[in-house]
């Protein structure tokens, strides 16, 4: 009951904190929009790639119209971006040439079901990302045309394609859905800002010290355990809701893609909010000066976020950075979210949950130990 009172008070206090809320909610939304728009070059065709070469192999008997459409699309892409498309018949040999980095990618168009697969190297460059995105948008518009064609073929002067079953899809070696820049930054800005939720945790404790209210609470029949539990749960709740607001806004207003499995996405975000908030709580017990503590956070957050691919896709950075990125919990939450949202893959999700909850347990243990040092805990 007392814990509940402390939680409710913590939430009310944070709801009133307009400055903190706008930083936690408005800031990421603005960032998603700005980064999404200005870095769209990373994800779609505005950059020139003069020396990029792509192989493509067609294995289609029935859907000739689709192949025609693809070929006019690829020549248009050639004109616009300088990526050269070369037709090939040798599937295995082409794959080897991509692996040897002589070509950026191999595009394979096959039937039953009708689909395009892109084979590329792990951590491939921007040209491949561009290729993926362009092909994805080609398929989207092809899809649209097909729908019109089915209903009113005369309008387009096209023959109705009875074979078409709507299962055209992009499949690269590791992505099942294209990632637009807005989609990308929606995920990474959310995890960026939720790292700053550690400040919410920090101030949950530090605020009680600076307003002299912690000793006052502890003079009431409330144990230091109850106080800590109330503060931790209250601030985690606040951080989580702030994260959900950003998620919902970006989904509903910015129309970014969050995948089919919102429950897993929510679970990941919750575990991450628990981790970052309890980091801040622990820090409040370890470092008494708020300048020093926010200095520490402001120093480590950008590094971990950078290593997590928060500002730029890891694939656009060197392999050294990709390797050391494993130390960043941001890398794990980001790849877990991308996996769940775009690939339907869950292996990184379990790593991320483990990393987040493990670290949170560590931070909360530290806090619990320190909060029992009566004379000094809240001084």
């Amino acid at each position, binding site marked *: 009951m007392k814990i509940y009172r402390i939680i409710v008070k913590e939430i*009310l206090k944070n709801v009133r904190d307009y400055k903190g809320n706008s930083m936690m909610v408005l800031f990421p939304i603005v960032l998603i929009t700005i980064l999404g728009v200005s870095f769209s070059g990373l994800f779609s065709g505005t950059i020139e790639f003069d020396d990029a070469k792509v192989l493509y192999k067609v294995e289609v008997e029935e859907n000739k119209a689709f192949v025609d459409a693809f070929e006019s699309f690829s020549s248009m892409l050639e004109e616009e971006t300088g990526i050269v498309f070369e037709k090939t018949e040798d599937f295995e040999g082409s794959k080897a040439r991509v692996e040897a980095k002589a070509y950026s990618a191999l595009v394979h168009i096959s039937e039953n079901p009708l689909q395009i697969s892109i084979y590329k190297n792990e951590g491939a460059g921007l040209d491949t990302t561009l290729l993926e995105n362009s092909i994805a948008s080609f398929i989207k518009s092809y899809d649209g045309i097909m729908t019109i064609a089915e209903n009113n073929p005369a309008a387009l002067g096209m023959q109705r394609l009875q074979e078409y079953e709507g299962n055209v899809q992009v499949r690269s070696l590791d992505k099942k859905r294209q990632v637009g820049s807005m989609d990308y930054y929606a995920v990474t800005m959310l995890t960026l800002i939720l790292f700053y939720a550690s400040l919410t945790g920090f101030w949950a404790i530090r605020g009680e010290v600076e*307003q*002299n209210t912690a000793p*006052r609470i*502890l003079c009431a029949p*409330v144990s230091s355990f109850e106080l800590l539990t109330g503060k931790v749960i209250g601030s985690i709740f606040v951080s989580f809701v702030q994260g959900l607001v950003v998620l919902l806004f970006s989904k509903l207003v910015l129309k970014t893609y969050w995948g089919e499995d919102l429950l897993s996405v929510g679970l990941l975000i919750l575990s991450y909010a628990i981790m970052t908030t309890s980091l801040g709580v622990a820090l409040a017990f370890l470092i008494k000066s708020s300048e020093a503590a926010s200095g520490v956070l402001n120093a480590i957050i950008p590094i971990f976020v950078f290593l997590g691919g928060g500002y730029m896709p890891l694939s656009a950075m060197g392999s050294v950075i990709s390797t050391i990125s494993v130390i960043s919990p941001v890398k794990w939450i980001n790849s877990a979210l991308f996996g769940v949202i775009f690939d339907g893959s869950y292996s990184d999700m379990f790593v991320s949950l483990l990393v987040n909850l493990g670290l949170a347990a560590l931070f909360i243990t530290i806090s619990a130990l320190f909060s029992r040092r009566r004379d000094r805990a809240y001084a």
Partner: protein
Amino acid sequence: MNIVRMDQVTKSFGDITAVDKMSLDIEEGEIFGLLGPNGAGKSTAINMITGLLHFDKGSISVLGSDVKKEKMKTKGYIGIVPQEVAIYEELTSLENVKFFASLYGLKGNELEAAALEALEFTGLSENAKKFPKTFSGGMKRRLNIACAIAHKPKLIIMDEPTVGIDPQSRNHILQSVKKLNEQGSTIIYTSHYMEEVEEICSRIAIMDHGKVIALGTCKELEDLISDRNIVLITVMDLLSGIKEDDIKQIPGVDAVEIEENIIKISSFREVSNMDKIINYFTSNGISIKSLESKMPDLEAVFLAMTGRKLRD
């Protein structure tokens, strides 16, 4: 029954012994004053009674229950007005009072009514929905009190509740203390303003260096120095080069306090040394503006017992 009993309580912070073998019995219904200069150990003593601080030696009981063994129970008896204002700027007055009262188990309508009553009592009814950000120092102090009394504690402990506020708010607070006492609460009131303590307290303990150096009613304390004479000498010049130690050399003088151009001298009654005192001033070329004999007060008691003044 004793509402508070402290027995040989000692508390150190590193090398500093903040409270040193302190023993004290406070009876139900008292307004008990704890008087002492900065650093005397008043807050430390109080924080041990409320269970906020552990102590090294001795024992403390509140209403017969040991504060270490039955902590939650004894905490529940007490309402604390901390020395530093302890309220949430982001919550309204009413929300502040309700929050703290709820920690003592009040809820629902009872909680709301108790909170409103506490605000009414401290004269903050009209500011119930306002945020303390906009409050004056005196209003914050009153809210600080409201947060301590809503749950109607048997024992109210006030740690220097009048520091740094205007005379009007101070008066209001002193009147509230009396009223709370009339309504049945026992009060422990710490201060280093001896006028306040003299005005409201039924019994007083004077603390210095972690020890109770004198205890009794105001009258009893003043009787302690009935063998002393206090003279106040006002001199013309602020920088007249008077040396405390020189005056202490005069026979019969036991304490001297210099505040700007007023010199307070305490001497034993049986020694007649007035001529020697006046001689000190005139022979040093310092002209005396006025000279008066003073009734003993707590300030003088403190001066006589410690050789120091109460306020710095």
